[in-house]
Structures are given as structure tokens and as C-alpha cells.
């Protein structure tokens, strides 16, 4: 099945805590579910995460964070993704995320919020179900969006988005 579209996931540990056992276990689970996992290691800045996500053209980002810095780091990641026109990437989080922060995290567009004890199968199924379907199409529709952003009016994708128009105006 040479042409089966592989889901590519970036697993990142932002912030300063070095506890990456959980991130590694999840990386392994995603691999065992047939996905290609780019594991970046610990102490990632939002810039590093977004830059890696763009270069690797991933379909999803999963951030594991235990340090409590999520409310500082997550908004920055989302902002940088938007700035780079890469906000069609599914962004998920896991680790220690206090219940009271979950609504704010979800409002940022970050999904999942996998706390301790989340079954691995839940996470892999969630990734499969929530990656933007057009990213997995064989013809990869976002290509047209890139083109539209580059040359306004050249093509008009049916599913254009506000964020992309912003990019056009850049």
C-alpha cells in the first residue's frame, strides 16, 4: 500500500520539565497505530514546535506538558501557527492540565486534553477522527489554499478560510 496516506504527528514537550516518559509512550502508541511520529524531545519553545510542524508538514501536533506553563505556551503556539497559515493542523495537548484551565485551552482550539490515565487507544482514535479530512485526501486540497494565498484570484478554493485570507494580505 505504497500510497496509503500516512498521518504525520509531531509530539513535542514544550516548557522546562523533562518528564518525557508519557510523551514517549504516546509516540510509541501512535507509531503502533501506523502513524509517522516526529518526536522533537524536551524543552521546546513555541517557535521550535511551529517551525518543526511546518518543515515536517504534519497533520497533527500533540504537546505534552506537566510543568504548569501551558497557559503561557499554548496561546503562543496557536498564534504562530495562525501567523504562518498552518492552522489547519490539529493541535492536541496532554499531561497535567487543571480542570479549570480546560475551557480556556479548548477556546484556543486545542483539543483532546488527555489527562493521566487516558487509554492509548483513545488518543490514537482521537487523532484519526480529528485530523482535518482534506489533509488526508490524495490530492491534498490545502495545496490549492497555499496557491490561493500566494496569488490571490488565481484559484478560489471552495473552503477558503479567514486565516488564509490574512496570509494573502501579508
Amino acid at each position, binding site marked *: 500500500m505504497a500510497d496509503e496516506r500516512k498521518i504525520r504527528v509531531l509530539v513535542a514537550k514544550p516548557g522546562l520539565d523533562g518528564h518525557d516518559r508519557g510523551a514517549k509512550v504516546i509516540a510509541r502508541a501512535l507509531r503502533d497505530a501506523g502513524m509517522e511520529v516526529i518526536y522533537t*524531545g524536551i524543552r521546546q519553545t513555541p517557535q521550535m514546535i511551529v517551525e518543526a510542524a511546518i518543515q515536517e508538514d504534519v497533520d497533527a501536533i500533540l504537546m505534552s506538558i506537566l510543568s504548569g506553563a501551558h497557559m503561557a505556551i499554548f496561546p503562543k503556539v496557536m498564534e504562530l501557527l495562525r501567523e504562518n497559515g498552518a492552522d489547519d493542523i490539529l493541535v492536541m495537548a496532554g499531561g497535567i492540565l487543571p480542570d479549570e484551565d480546560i475551557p480556556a485551552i479548548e477556546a484556543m482550539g486545542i483539543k483532546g486534553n488527555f489527562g493521566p490515565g487516558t487509554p492509548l487507544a483513545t488518543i490514537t482514535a482521537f487523532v484519526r477522527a480529528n485530523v482535518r479530512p482534506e489533509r488526508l485526501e490524495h490530492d491534498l486540497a490545502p495545496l490549492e489554499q497555499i*496557491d490561493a494565498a500566494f496569488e490571490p484570484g488565481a484559484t478560489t478554493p471552495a473552503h477558503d478560510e479567514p486565516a488564509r485570507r490574512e496570509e494573502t494580505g501579508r
Partner: protein
Amino acid sequence: MSLPGGKRRVASMPTQANENIVTRLLAGDRRALARVVTLIENHAPQAQRILAQLHAHTGRAHIIGITGSPGAGKSTLVMQLARELRRRERTIGVIAVDPSSPFTGGAILGDRIRMQELSGDPHVFIRSMASRGSLGGLAVSTRDTVRALDAAGFDVVIIETVGAGQAEVEIVRAAQTVVVVTVPGMGDDIQAIKAGILEIADIFVVNKADRPGADQTAAELRMLLSLDDTRKERSWRVPILKTSATTGAGIPELADKLDEHLAALKESGQLAARGGRQAQSEMLALLHQALVERIEAAIGPEEWDRLVQEVVERRSDPYTTAARLAARIGLAPSHEPA
């Protein structure tokens, strides 16, 4: 069972769109480059048209392959080398290949962990790639990805292979300069690799040279090289360098030798010869693929399964069946075995 190569649809992608992504890639747009690599990796219908347009813009990058056994320090060496080359104001594209699981098809691509220091440099582009069942130490898409990076204007493209043993020598067909990385204390392992990746080295690196036994390893390599008669006819003398990728020792010397090797290739005309060999194998591979597609189009999966079953049950044989099929798609002369 299905034929290798999978299904490929011929899509009617607007040419305009392809031109745009090509223009953006050539202008150094990182998202466009990343997306083109994804299209290449997934054998998307428009990938070949994009690559066809990129070809004229390639041929400027120095393509360096880094290979060696797992754990030899390839990723760290690539990071240090890239840093050194950045000091020399070169721009760098890195393709880091890691193995796919043969069971699930998934992969953990961890080479970026060692390359974090390169993050944030706009003149460095790193792409991790899963081997996706390819056995030669590279992925099927690696060479086309090199083409995309070359066209995007990177001065140097570094390919880091899957941790390689004896037979993963595909890198020779993809790179202009092949660096084989080994480490002290491998003992008989050096004997073991001499037939395989030892022969393909343009430069040897004994990495982790701060460990005991580095001089002995270098001496063993020197001896093995002196025994290789094919080497004597070549003008390039394979250097054996000692490096420590964690401290950076020996890295400037490696960068110097890489430049020297490229200059030697140009001078001896080997660079042009390599280019010719590469173009030939690429064209053959594309023709092979076209052939497989034609066979798939002519023979449905059900008929294919039935024919396979006939051979398995000894009601037919592979030679007769293949000859008949070839004749049907207009390929074979009629020397079908009776």
C-alpha cells in the same frame, strides 16, 4: 494480493496551481517546500509535474550522504556539520531517514532531537522521513526530495540514512559524497562491514574519537582500504577522520574534506558521470512504474488474484502467466513457453 505500486489516479490538477507552488518553492518558501515533499512522499498525482518543473533549477547543491551503523552518532554529526557549514555561510537542507515498522507501517522519527540547536535558523530546513518499507537505507522518495531541496536553493543537502549495516548502499545513488561513520570498539564489526558500506565511502569518520580505541579503529580502516584494489585506480584518496560529534572536534576538517571531494569529483569528470548514472536509473524507475500502472489498468485485482491462485495451485506457472499478460498489454514477443 495486489501489484506493487498501488493505485495512482490521474488527476486534473490545474496547471496554474502547480506553477504557484513551484514559484513559491523556488523563492524559498518553506511551507511550499514542505508541502511539495509531502506530495512527493505520498506519490500524489501532481508531484511528478512539479518535479518536472523543478528539475531545470537543480544541480547546484552539494549532496552529502551520511551513513553508518545505528548509534554511531550520525544525527549529532549532521547537527555539528550543519553548524560548521553555517559558519561558512552555506544554507543547508537535511533529510533524515528513519525506519518504518514492518508490522504497522508507523514510525518514530527522532533525528530532530539531536538537531535542536539548528532550530530557528531560517537557512536550515530539516525534514524527517520514514523509510516506508524501502530496504536500501533510504525512502523511495528521498531522491525526489533532494531535488526539491536543491531547487529551493540550499547550497548543501545532507541525507542521513537509516542506521545501516552491510547492504544499505542506496545512498551511493542519491549522494555525491558519501561519509561512512563508524565508532571505536566495534572490533570485528569493522570486518563485517568491509564488504558493504565500507566500499561506498568517500570519507570515513571515526566518531566518538574521545573514546579509547579510536586510533586502532582508524588504523584498521586504513589497512582495509589499502587492501581494496579498486581504490588504487581512483584519484581520490579516502581520508579517515576522527571526530567527536558531542564536542565538535574534527568537524571543521570534515567540512574541508567534503569541499575537497566535491572539487575532485568535478575535476575528474566523475560528477558528470554520476549525474548520468543517476538520470539513467531515475528514468528506468519511472518507466518501471509506468509499466506497473499499465499492468494494473489492464488486469483487475480479481483476475490478478485468480491468476496468482492458479500458479500457487500448480495449474499454471509464473512464466507462462507473465508472458501471456505481457502479450495482452502489447509488450511481449510471442515466445510464450508452450
